[in-house]
């Protein structure tokens, strides 16, 4: 996983998606072809790092690799440019989660490959 992570680290660290030069649509994750107008003329673009919670859940059964991280709070966030993104929501007690709460992006550890392997960083969200 070290290499596939490395390949996308800018995407994870900077919320770097892309934008269609023809019609202005923005995407995260980035696309190969604009879904709205079909253009292949896309440029990298950082997404805004604030938005609001559209829906969320507290996951009590995590997948392999995320042991020790349960419960895991996840949300679909509507960023301020209209792009929807999937992310963990941290530092918020589950009972305080609300649809519509404002959130901002933070830089956190996603997981580690055990004690001796690499550390994978990326984006998460906290409630403002």
């Amino acid at each position, binding site marked *: 996983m070290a290499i596939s992570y490395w390949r996308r680290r800018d995407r994870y660290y900077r919320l770097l998606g892309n934008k269609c030069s023809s019609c202005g649509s923005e995407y995260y994750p980035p696309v190969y072809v604009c879904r709205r107008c079909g253009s292949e003329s896309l440029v990298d673009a950082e997404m805004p790092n604030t938005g609001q919670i559209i829906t*969320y859940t507290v*996951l009590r059964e*995590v*997948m392999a690799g995320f042991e020790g991280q349960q419960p895991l709070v996840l949300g679909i966030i509507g960023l301020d440019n209209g792009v929807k993104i999937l992310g963990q929501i941290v530092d918020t007690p589950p009972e305080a989660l609300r649809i519509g709460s404002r959130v901002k992006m933070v830089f956190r550890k996603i997981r580690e490959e055990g004690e001796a392997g690499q550390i994978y960083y990326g984006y998460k969200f906290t409630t403002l």
Partner: protein
Amino acid sequence: MSRVIVASVGYTKVGDHWDKSILDLAVEASKKALKPYPNIKPDVIIVANMFSSQSSRQEHLGALLANALNLVGTPAFKVEAACASGGVAFNIGYRMIRSGEATSALIVGVEKMRDLDVPEVSLALSMAESAEYTQFIGATFLSLNAMLARLYQETYNVTRDELSAFPVIAHQNATTAEHAQFRKAISVDDVSRSPLVSDPLRLLDCAPIGDGAASVLLTSDSVIDKDEEEVEVLSSKISTNIFSLYERDDMLTFSSTKDAASKAFSEAGISLSDVDVLEIHDAFSVTAALSVEAMGFSKAGEGAKDAAAGVYSLRGRHPALTFGGLKGRGHPVGATGLYQIAELWLQLKGKGGLNQVEGCRVGVAQNIGGVDTTSVVSVLAKGD
């Protein structure tokens, strides 16, 4: 173009088959399907499976099964489309016969899930979603459907008990289905009391993990006479959606199912009221509701409410999940699409036993991969 007959079916019980490998299960189901027609050597063997590489460190399932069945030389390959693998494999076999490329096809769906522990199964299933953006952050398939369920409840004011209706129907029907994984009825209170796995979804909202294989022998009408008793495939259509749920503008419409269904119904020349039996993809309670809405059997937001009102019960207007569906019969993911076909065949042939839908002539199977990312809708009918 040839007419395509579902000649026979074979399947294993769904459950924890500790003593059977992925190949053991596939062979068992295949032999059952081939047995009634010992003189038919299939022109092609198609294996449907999602994650044999994870569960069994095994790929190349097509040739593996051809060898095991002593059918060396037969064209054989694996088809994968996440949980829609079964439906897609069926679709390909159907098209090969319809086009005249083949006169018979053995389609076998198999999944071995129990050799992995639950977190590993979650990881394997998450490969139906984006590895780089969904799996990377630890979002399991369950969590995506849970977020969808919350949105569904909030948007349409669906209560906990209404959402529980499909699981209750599934379990009710499974009590009299011999091949079902769970044969115990549940109540809406049981669902509400079951542990929260990813709120708002509870344990009993979710299809279980299990092993199983289901097989279908398809032939053209040149091999088997298309008489009134034979079950014919009227149509089968596949569609795809924007890959991840959250990338879609409207997260509450299963547009891939909507598209596949409308094309399948149109080609089959049927309307909704012609459909006597529905085998839908109830991987989660919310998935069942959104599936019937996308196909048009319920209006937007009313799928769960209609289920609660009895519309989809065995004696209701649109009997669904007649042998338990994914929730009650079980969901060995790559095999599910073929279990659905096998169950429609049982219904249309009048072999449904205590689960028989009286006088049924048209059945529809809807099988999805991801959160409606791939959808296959197939229409089967008996008689003319």
